[in-house]
């Protein structure tokens, strides 16, 4: 009579002592292989009486299934152990520095320009540029500043010759747009670009700077439209809670003219060093396009009206980022430029 209990116990013990995959393979052959112990038991069946075979076979098959499962479980456990060991071996010091991915950035003036352009493009404005070496005609005459006008002194000019100069304001682009589109109204443009004035460079003055001016001409354009547009601009550029204040001013290109202040984004209007205690920051000049300027471009000023505004890009960048010296924007020191490095 076969002692099933002893057989199972014997092989159970053998299985439990396995620590290496090679031992497991060897055991698998000894137990389940063609000449293994289970096969040996099967061989004994031939010597049995036919009525005993069924019960015997059932026992053997039960043992076979049992040990097949057992060995598979042990195999998985061994595999898992091996994986854990190799993971442990492959662990890194994740505190070591990363590989630098070189990142480039735009110049802060370009960043500000893009932001402004985006605001106006979303309102349906075209972006128009013009030449920096400009004709007196477009820079002064057509902007309402004839020869010997005292305002020419305010904008000390780099001249090339009698007719040509370096653009002193982006108004020169506007006068070109007015001329080019006088028969294709309405006009709705912003004009960004570099300007030049004969100023000595210091912390707040630069002989080269950038502006963006806007111009809208059509039927029934009012100063209310200007105010609403500037309000929207202030909110988009400096935050939703900003308000604006208009103050009377004077520009040859516009009448009436107004200086626009935005409520201080540093202190919210309470008064601080940025706004010099006033709660307001002067941000741009604006006004209703002077009828003479329209007429010079061939636009009927009794039918059409328009507004214009302009802001200095360096000035906005300086206010926005707290830059105290405009020369920083032209020195291109990488340690300075590295600050302007993220999505806003």
């Amino acid at each position, binding site marked *: 009579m076969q002692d099933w209990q002893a057989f199972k116990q014997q092989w159970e013990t053998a299985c439990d002592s396995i620590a290496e995959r090679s031992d497991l393979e060897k055991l698998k052959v000894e137990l389940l292989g063609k000449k293994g112990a289970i096969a040996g038991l099967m061989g004994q069946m031939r010597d049995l009486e036919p009525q005993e075979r069924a019960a015997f076979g059932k026992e053997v098959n039960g043992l076979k299934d049992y040990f097949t499962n057992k060995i598979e479980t042990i195999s998985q456990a061994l595999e898992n152990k091996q994986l854990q060991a190799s993971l442990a071996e492959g662990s890194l010091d994740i505190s070591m520095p990363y590989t630098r991915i070189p990142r480039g950035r735009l110049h802060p003036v370009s960043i500000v320009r893009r932001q402004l352009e985006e605001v106006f493009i979303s309102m349906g404005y075209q972006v128009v540029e013009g030449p920096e070496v400009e004709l007196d005609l477009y820079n002064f005459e057509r902007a309402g500043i004839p020869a010997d006008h005292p305002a020419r002194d305010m904008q000390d000019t780099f001249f090339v010759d009698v007719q040509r100069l*370096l653009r002193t304001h982006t108004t020169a682009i506007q006068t070109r747009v007015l001329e080019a589109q006088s028969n294709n109204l309405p006009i709705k443009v912003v004009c960004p670009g570099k300007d030049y004035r004969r100023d000595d460079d210091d912390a707040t003055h630069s002989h080269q700077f950038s502006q963006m001016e806007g111009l809208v001409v059509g039927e029934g354009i009012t100063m209310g439209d200007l105010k609403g547009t500037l309000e929207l601009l202030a909110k988009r550029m400096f935050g939703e809670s900003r308000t604006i204040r208009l103050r009377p001013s004077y520009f040859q290109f516009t009448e009436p003219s107004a200086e626009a202040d935005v409520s201080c984004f540093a202190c919210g209007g309470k008064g601080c060093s940025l706004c010099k205690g006033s709660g307001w920051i002067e941000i741009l000049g604006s006004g209703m396009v002077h009828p003479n300027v329209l007429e010079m471009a061939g636009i009927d000023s009794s039918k059409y009206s328009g507004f214009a505004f302009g802001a200095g890009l360096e000035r906005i960048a300086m206010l926005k980022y707290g830059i105290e010296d405009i020369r920083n924007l032209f020195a291109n020191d990488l340690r300075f430029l590295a600050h302007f490095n993220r999505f806003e």
Partner: protein
Amino acid sequence: MQLSINWLKSYMDLSDITPAILRDKLTSAGLEVERIEQGSPATGLTIGLVLTCNPHPDSDHLKCTTVDVGSTVLSIVCGAPNVAAGQKVIVAMDGAVLPQIVIKKSVIRGQQSEGMICSLSEIGVDASMQSEAQLAGIEVLSKDAPIGGDPLAFLGLDDTILEISLTPNRSDCYAMWPLAKEIGAILDRPVTLPDCEGAADIGGPTSLKVASEAKGCPTFLGKVIGSVTLKPSPDWIVKALHSYGVKSINNVVDISNLVMLETGQPTHFYDKDKIPLRQITVKDNIAADYTALDGNTYSCTPGDLMITTGDKLIGFAGIMGGDDSKILDTTTGIIIEVASFDRVHIRRTSRRLGLQTEAAVHYQRVMEPLTPYKAMDRCVALLLQYADAKEIEATAIYGIKPSGELKLLTDEKFHNKLLGTNFSLEEITDVFRRLDFKPVVKGSQVELTIPSYRSDISIQPDLSEEIIRLLGFENITSTLPVLVSKEGGLSLDQKKREKIKDVLTGYGLQEVINYSLVNRSFINHPTWELGEAVELANPLSEERRYYRTSVLPSLISTALYQLDHYQDEFALFEIGDVYYEPMEKQERLSIILSSNVDLSLWQKAALQNDFYRIKGMVAGVLSELGFGQNRVFFKENIEQSEYFHPGQSAAIYLDKTFLGVCGMLHPKLEIVKQAGALGAAELDLSAIFSAKASAIRYQPIPRYPGIQRDLALLIPQSQSAGALINAIYKTGGKLVEKAEVFDLYTGKGVPDGQKSLAIRISYQSYEKTLVEAEIDVLTNTIIERLQRDFQAQIRS
């Protein structure tokens, strides 16, 4: 413009208005107040009479005084050399706070001192406002100073000055009278100015003849006052002048200065005995040397407006009078000159001479045509009152008196339409009343009489501005323009430029912006030659004389700056315009790369910026814009510019259009000596923008397997791999999907003058599975071509 509050008070009631409120009101009406300045900040001062003055027993230079300050008599030790008994002086009492010191009773070398006798400097008066004598010692007040009174009030130092920044259209406000009128309009209160209209209409027949032979002098008034008495000015004139930083000299000279401050009209007084000819003519055709009132000799040239009598020069018109006809202590009678001169002439002459006198500054502003007449009236009235003017002759007049006042008709509709407001006719009429535009309502309109000093007002929008600045911008309701909608956005070229910026920043490049104006050395060697640089006629310095003709030199100097500041790793780009005569403009992109950029120090990983990397950047930018390698060609750089290594740079072509240069900078450049090999490029963006990009065309992913063949070749050094690859594409036809170099080697094992090149050709058909034998035949055809055209040898 400086505004004396005390002076302003003589014209209007300001008792309920503080300087701060006045500042806010003026600023919001367009007269921006930049600063408020108090006269003297000192406290605890009183006027005293020096009763006795004796030497200090223990000092050579100190004196012991007794001073009557009204309520009591103080003992004061004083070190001033000029102190003497009988003087009226400024006494700082015990506890007085002066700018530099707080006064305390003390004992000075054994003598009691209960206060201090002050100089003007000690109470905070600027040295420029004082005479030599005043600077040297204590201030001696005039005899009429009240003992125990306030010395600051007595001296006019209790005043507050507002510094107002005026816009050019309101140059009328550079004079007290129009400024007072303007403030009256802003505050809506009455203004009473001295009434002297017609004061100059007196006088007997005159022997004086005035004339102008110059176009730049439309009006010239002359008047002989045969007898005047020179004496000190009355106190109010001294104070008024003082508040504008003008020193009092004597009554006659002071009147001339005062009238300029009041009316904005410069006047000139000549000693009548120095112009015996009684004939004054303005000329502009004289070339001569001339000694002016300041004692300096200047040369006048044709075009300068000159005042002459007979053949004699007596002044640069509107700038400075002559030395030999000026008012002296001996003067007994005067000739008054009041004229209008063209501001352009005055500006030109005063700039050339470097003489920016007060008069010249006034003349360079827009002046109303009636001021000469107003100023003459005022001069005569003041001379009668304060200088015993007698023997007055009638005014000699050159020019026609302008009619002056402009009439305008307006209504509320125009202004509401322009401003986007809802004002009534009554509201706007009230604004015009405040401005003294004398509104008369005529039906639905109002007629205005614009005063002559408001020469800035001529059209309806000028009136709109007056309305809105006095009623306030808060009356405007914010709206947005309602227009036929047009498409907004960037132009195609602008979009391409932004794309390039994004691609380059993605490559790790930092954008920079340099000055466009450069010195000679930047334009001597442009990246490539196109023409003469645009040169400024009036540069500020040699450093900024030319508009740049290439961007790369600026970028090189930016790179040098980084080296100077210990930044030896950089990758920079700049996009900017260049100009060439005559008015040729190109937009350029320039790049500069340091030789290495460290990626990880501990892993010893770095980006190597060699020729092939800058070439890759250029090809990458062009590819992003739609110009693939079938259209972009890197050819030998025959420009041989100063900037590039001749053997490590390439001229870049798009189809047949020259785009620019890329490669390694020339080893002789300072930057290369300092920083090692540097990659750089300059591209003509205008040419790139105007080229038509290839469209995206979809091609199905191949369904059949491809075949690869590797060739190992030896070719002469002089043959270019690029040309060889092109030949493979041409010979192989459409079955050649790709041909690329995977090894380049010279040196050991390779014969001199040869290079070893390994090339992988990938064959691909979109129609069938390729047969090996067919590909062998094609490969052999390619090899034959390479052997024939490139002297290639197959290496086993």
